[in-house]
């Protein structure tokens, strides 16, 4: 049960129930689609990028609590960040959720995203936690074909 509480932290449950930035960005100039065929998680990500900076970000779609909360928290974390900062954050996030379960998680610079540290204990859920981030990567690279976690 402690593992489960670690995974389904209050912040995650809250963002699942009331996801932030859960909307289409009307003046978006980048967008991408992410799909996890294993569980059917599906999301559209919209970005408004000015120069190097992410000015606005929103998403729509359906998915499990982990994928939805991850997209929500990611969108909150990235507003105003540069593309380079976003990529660095993804790397840190990815390292945390796939890290060694025996060692304490490296949460430096992750801010609120540390609530996903519990995902390390649930390898089957890593794809849920990273779907939004993979979709972000595709949007930033301007790829228009859907991203799949498989």
């Amino acid at each position, binding site marked *: *049960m402690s593992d489960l509480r670690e995974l*389904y932290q209050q912040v995650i449950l809250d963002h699942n129930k009331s996801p932030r930035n859960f909307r289409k960005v009307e003046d978006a100039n980048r967008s991408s689609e992410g799909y996890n065929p294993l*569980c*059917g998680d599906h999301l559209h990500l919209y970005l408004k990028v000015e120069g190097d900076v992410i000015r606005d970000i929103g998403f729509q779609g*359906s998915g499990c*609590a982990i994928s939805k909360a991850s997209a929500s928290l990611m969108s909150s974390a990235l507003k105003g960040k540069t593309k380079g900062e976003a990529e660095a954050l993804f790397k840190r996030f990815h390292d945390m959720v796939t890290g060694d379960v025996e060692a304490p998680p490296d949460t430096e610079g992750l801010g609120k995203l540390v609530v996903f540290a519990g995902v390390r204990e649930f390898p089957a859920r890593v794809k849920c936690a990273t779907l939004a981030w993979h979709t972000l990567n595709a949007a930033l690279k301007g790829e228009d074909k859907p991203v799949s976690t498989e």
Partner: protein
Amino acid sequence: MSAAYLSLARSGETPDGAFDAEKVRADFPILKRRVYDRPLVYLDNAATAQKPQAVIDAVERYYSAENSNVHRGVHYLSQRATCAYEGARARVRGFLNAAEDREVVFTRGTTEAINLVAQSYGRGHVREGDEIILSEMEHHSNIVPWQMLCEERGAVLRVIPVNDRGELLLEEYERLLNKRTKFVSVVHASNVLGTVNPVQQIVKMAHRWNAPVLVDGAQAVPHMRVDVQEIDCDFYAFSGHKLYGPTGIGVLYGKIGLLEAMSPYQGGGSMIRSVTFEKTTYAEVPNRFEAGTPHIEGGIGLGAAIDYVNEVGLDAAAAYEEGLLAYATEALRGVPGLRLIGTARQKVGVLSFVMGDIHPHDIGTILDREGVAVRAGHHCAQPLMQRFGVPATVRASLAFYNTREDVDALVRGLHRVREVFG
């Protein structure tokens, strides 16, 4: 010990004839293990069933005492291996009540069996503008091979719809049948809904239009006695691993007249009579469809699984499973917010459900930590998910070794889910 006593003391029966699930459980070593320090509650039998000691022993015996290639060696071991492998074919014949052993083709599983028919029979008979009828509740393995054939041939897929309970609408099926119908392929028991389809009637209706029928029996054979002559289907496919046997082995039954008229599926060793660079002549059925060294221990393991299932007694097991399904259905209906998907009048022990806004994947994770193994997802039946307007479901599927305690553990787990998600 008298013969009468021995027959009463079969694995699944108590001396008074009732089904003894506890006794059956003892035959499955994995059911004794714990996960996350809790007893394993295995409710993912529609994905794959656990293996009884008799199957594990048969595979081990083959490798430690009989390992050799089949059908070609003159030496002792090869004869032993051939005998064991072909003995398994004879057991499958008996299990399905096929007319002869030659009607049993070994494949990698249900998927390969369907592909074999789509490629080998389909390419020989399906032309532009022809129609193939499937149902809305098919597994992807009974959709995609036909779709590939249709694309290649310019043929059209027609789909029998289901009602809200998850039963096929036979009057719609009747309307779909016509002189362009060249094949019908339907599932016997749905892997998502549990619905048992009236396959005998479906076959009869197709035969009026001279359309042959394949029945996908992957989810049916573990739960009921199947008689292919009674059903009168032209092809029947199933997988060994859902029938308590090994993975990688499956069966295609085909009426001998149809199989004999079909071209080979894959080319290679074992499937030929003679080869020159100018011309190859093919072996007789079933070898014509079994190119290459087969999955020998898989076949032997499947034979052992069939022996085991016969010993347990499928009729007694089916009656027991029916009672357990009724118990589980009632128990799940008592969980607030839970909606069962698949409430057909004729069902095997498959319980698909959703719970309010809680995503099936989250439910699956929480149940897993309670030691309860279920499946969460679209179950390789995306068109059916669309029909019921859900992205995914949780699926608990029963076997004859499951008990009411297993169902109770599932229900406790679902209450835990509600706690976590408040």
